[in-house]
């Protein structure tokens, strides 16, 4: 029974089905999807670490392989990551009790003056799907609120997003404010968005520039492995 649930969970991650109403790639695959199967797994007392390792992560590994082989496209990857993110929300209360750690707390935000959030949301989905504990602060967030979040929640990572050349300057202000508050060293700052670049990241003192969400996951995973 437990093995069946885990196998079904893995398959539904591969198919990118978050709920039973979702269509996967294989039209014949119906019935409970990732959310329903995660709940079923908990009801059947399957340990959260097994749900994550053998179901969610194993599924995402296959998705990654298919993406590399150009069998899957970004929408497929996002659908799977979104489903895994939803499963992680369900599992979150159980993780501490089971001594299971996420890959780390990640705050993500579109900086002050900028209301663009498509890129930020996609990055959030991918990070969540990759096992990071994502806190999405939203759009047009004032610098002091971001600093307050870092002080209180102590995230390991902070992602700053801006689309416009007029708003990217707020990223530098955030880093200056983190320095002034004495919390800059406790958080790695990643920046991304159409207006920014590797050079700009260096200029304002950010730790990483990420081209897109995949790049963010890659850089963070490499950092953790180092």
């Amino acid at each position, binding site marked *: 029974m437990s093995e069946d649930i885990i196998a079904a969970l893995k398959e539904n991650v591969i198919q*990118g089905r978050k709920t039973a109403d979702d*269509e996967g*790639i294989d039209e014949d695959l119906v019935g409970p999807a990732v959310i329903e199967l995660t709940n079923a797994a908990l009801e059947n007392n399957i340990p959260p670490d097994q749900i994550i390792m053998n179901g969610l992560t194993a599924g995402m590994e296959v998705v990654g392989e298919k993406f590399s082989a150009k069998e899957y496209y970004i*929408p*497929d990857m*996002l*659908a799977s990551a979104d489903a895994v993110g939803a499963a992680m929300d369900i599992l979150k209360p159980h993780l501490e009790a089971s001594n299971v750690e996420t890959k780390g707390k990640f705050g993500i935000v579109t900086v002050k003056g900028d209301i663009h959030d498509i890129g930020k*949301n*996609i990055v959030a989905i991918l990070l969540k799907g990759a096992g990071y504990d994502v806190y*999405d602060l939203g759009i047009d967030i004032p610098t002091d609120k971001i600093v307050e979040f870092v002080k209180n929640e102590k995230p390991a990572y902070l992602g700053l997003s801006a689309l416009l050349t007029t708003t990217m300057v707020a990223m530098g202000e955030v880093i200056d404010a983190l320095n002034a508050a004495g919390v800059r060293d406790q958080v790695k700052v990643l920046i991304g968005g159409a207006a920014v670049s590797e050079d700009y990241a260096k200029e304002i003192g950010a730790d990483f520039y990420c081209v897109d969400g995949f790049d963010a996951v890659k850089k963070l995973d490499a950092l953790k492995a180092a």
Partner: protein
Amino acid sequence: MAREGLLINQPLLRLSQEQVERIHHASMEILSDPGLICFNKNAAEIFQSNGAEVSTLADYDHPAWLVKLPEQIVLKALDSAPKTVKLGARNPDNALIMNGEEPRVYFISGSETNIWLDVDFPTYTKKSDPSVEIQVPEWKPRRGTVADLCQSAHVCEHLETLDGYIRTVNIQDKDITEQNKDVNKYFASLNNMTKHVMAGLTSLDQIDNVVNMAQIIAGGEEQLKENPIISFITCLVKSPLQFVDDTTDTFIEICKRGLPIVVSSAPQAGSTAPIKEVGILAQINAEVLAGITLGQLVNPGTPVLYGSVPVRARMDTLNDSYSAVETSQYNVDCVQLARYYKIPNYSTSGVCDPKIPGQQSSIERLFSDILVTLSGPQYLHCTYGLLDCNSVFCLPQAVMDDAHFKMIKFFLRQPKIDEEEIAEILKQIRTVSATPQKLFISYIRKVMRSGQLSEVYPFEGDGEGDNAFKLAYEKTQELLAKPVEHIDEATTKTIFEQIPGILPRLNIYQ
């Protein structure tokens, strides 16, 4: 069954109905005054016996007659011309059904070029930084051969958008003569493709050999009439307003055999036709109608296409300028004129001025390809792979053109907008609006896998490099490696026994 082609739901119209009628009346006036100079005795006699005013002209080296065509003869001929023309194919599913009133476009290759363009990709190293290397296409022109024609037909068989074939290269082998060229060019084309094959005849003497060969392949005389796997193109009226002697003879003989034929006229605005749009239209329309009239007088019901190949003159050389914007205007106008007469139209696009593929050729060909397609000609001779005003053929360019026509065809798909779609989309929008991320991405996948999204440009390079030609070349090699359905062995044997002049090396069974 027939090929689907591309139905244009709202054809591009440049002329108002009133303007079309004005052109029609002007053409009728031209046909009666000044009329046409006819250098062909048979045609002059046919016109005269059907009520045209025909008089002998003395001022020419060659026997000549002035033919003044009254409107009623032309209108009667237009009445007897079929409004629907079928061009058959070795594979009957590849037939083309063209209705003069329906703007369903079929995309056709051609026409004959003398030069075949080979390509190599030598590597160049940057002098100041030898670690930097680039590959640049090196184009190598040479005279075309029958082997090239076989290759061209082979690749064109596999081009998805290409509906029919006009040979792309003139066969200039040492053992090709005026007497055996026709049978070889038709055989090389037919043996390497199952789509429709159209060509012009080099020698009238060869007409029966060509028709007999087509009958053998189609299965008999009646079968060929039912499924005309070949057709012909003739430019019997030379601009301005002159029936050419030998081509008119050829035209008359083809009409007698009842096989489909294009009546084509190719005036050049500025030299052989007036430079003003209204002028070239009135003249080309008169020339094509005169040809159609002759065909219907010879054999009422002969399936004909209204063939318009108008072009503007270059002001610097007085050569043809197919890339001139006006050339596309004339072509689009002629599609409208043909539709006025309900006769299927043969139109032209994609002809470009440069001698090699590149930015200029891409821009010029796409400009006319898009616009003329939009006007809805039934038979669009869209010059896959042709360069230098139809003098040069490049196979990888034809492969690229196929990709471009896929884009054009995709663009012209009609959206599905009905109650069911609206209900589904409203549900989708309401669902997404209620989520924190507000992304429609999860709905992409089904659409993406159902073929409803256009494909990425197939010759897209990596990074900043433009490798389009290299990738097109590789695709060409891929298509050449795919098999084609040749004419079967028994039929080939019969053809070689009964039809003289076909080169033994074209027999793939020996």
